[in-house]
């Protein structure tokens, strides 16, 4: 269903008018990182497309509502359209739920390794944004010394090196509306940016308000210190 719906979604996002993407892969960098970082909305929109087309087949992000996507630049109609595309009764108020109706289903279907919820995955891992990118691009042929468990894949970024999630990203797994070449690396970077936003939707606002607050309190500190000195000096 979600796969079938992807082209429609891509068209919808094209209307959202994402800016022509710049190259963030050489060298690899994320706009959201750093003290004053902000979410790259174009990348996060592309990342959502990847999430919805690929990741959502197994993973939920149930702290997010479809209406929250409006913060990434989707119009209310588009958010409602995305929700309608996955046949949700209550429209954009719905959360990005697990595709599995039976809560015990995923673990049994994946040999015991349940796909984790992705809402806050970036906050849960050290250097979460980079971790997501490295995990998704970290699949490699297992070295001779590693004895893989059945149904597991060798991944250089995963603790222990063996992961139950198969490599899912490949070139052109999605078609980007803004014309960005959908290489596997690009998709991984975009999903990492999307999940960074998902874990901390207020990141941009936090940094923006923070900068203003620090400047304001720096000013207030100087004025208050000067005022105190003036008042105390007058006493003499």
């Amino acid at each position, binding site marked *: 269903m979600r796969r079938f719906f992807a082209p429609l979604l891509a068209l919808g996002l094209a209307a959202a008018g994402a800016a022509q993407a710049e190259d963030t892969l050489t060298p690899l960098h994320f706009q959201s990182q750093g003290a004053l970082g902000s979410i790259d909305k174009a990348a996060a929109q592309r990342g959502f497309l990847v999430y919805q087309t690929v990741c959502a087949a197994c993973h939920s992000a149930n702290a997010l509502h479809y209406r929250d996507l409006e913060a990434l630049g989707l119009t209310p109609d588009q958010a409602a359209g995305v929700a309608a595309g996955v046949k949700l009764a209550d429209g954009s108020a719905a959360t990005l739920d697990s595709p599995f109706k039976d809560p015990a289903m995923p673990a049994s279907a994946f040999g015991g390794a349940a796909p984790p919820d992705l809402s806050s995955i970036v906050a849960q891992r050290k250097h979460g944004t980079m971790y997501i990118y490295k995990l998704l691009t970290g699949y490699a042929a297992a070295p001779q010394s590693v004895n893989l468990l059945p149904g597991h894949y060798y991944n250089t970024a995963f603790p222990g090196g063996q992961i139950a999630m198969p490599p899912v990203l490949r070139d052109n797994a999605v078609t980007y509306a803004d014309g960005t070449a959908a290489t596997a690396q690009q998709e991984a970077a975009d999903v990492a940016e999307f999940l960074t936003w998902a874990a901390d939707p207020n990141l941009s606002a936090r940094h923006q308000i923070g900068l203003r607050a620090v400047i304001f309190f720096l000013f207030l500190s100087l004025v*208050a210190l000067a005022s105190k000195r003036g008042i105390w000096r007058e006493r*003499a």
Partner: protein
Amino acid sequence: MAETAATEASGHGTESRRGFLTILTGAASAVAIGAIGWPLVDALNPDAESEAGARLIVDVADIAENTAKAVQWGGLPIYIRKLTAQQIADAQAVVPDTLPDPADFMSRVPAAYQNYVVVVGLNTGTPCELEGNDPADPRGDFGGWICPCDGSQYDPLGRVRSGPAKKNLAIPRFTFINAAQIQFG
């Protein structure tokens, strides 16, 4: 002592500069307290979830004539019914004054979409959800709704016609956004 003399010598310049600094500090502190306090006040405003829930949007284009759709809004069962031409004609033919709770046709339907009836589907007598949304359901003698608990009967406009109930069905706050969608709240 020498310092005091120097201060006096410099006169009003120092004095007014200090006054300015004091006022600036006081004003900036007031701004800071306001800015810090506002999020605490604003956080008690309705949150995004209840805002979204309070302004429910319902699709009405998929309702077939002579059937009603049931939705939940504000904890109430809301019935949205599409009338047939025959039901409209019948309802307009009734003289309001003969009814237990007189109400004319226009007071029961939205002015721009007169073939829709939107009511709270709760019996006004014994509290009970009404039956009769589907044409196959029991609807009583007036082709509207019937209460399975006390047998009160309503016509397709939700006006009470018989039974212990004495009031017409309540009409919730709603508006038609367009021909296909209703927004509540």
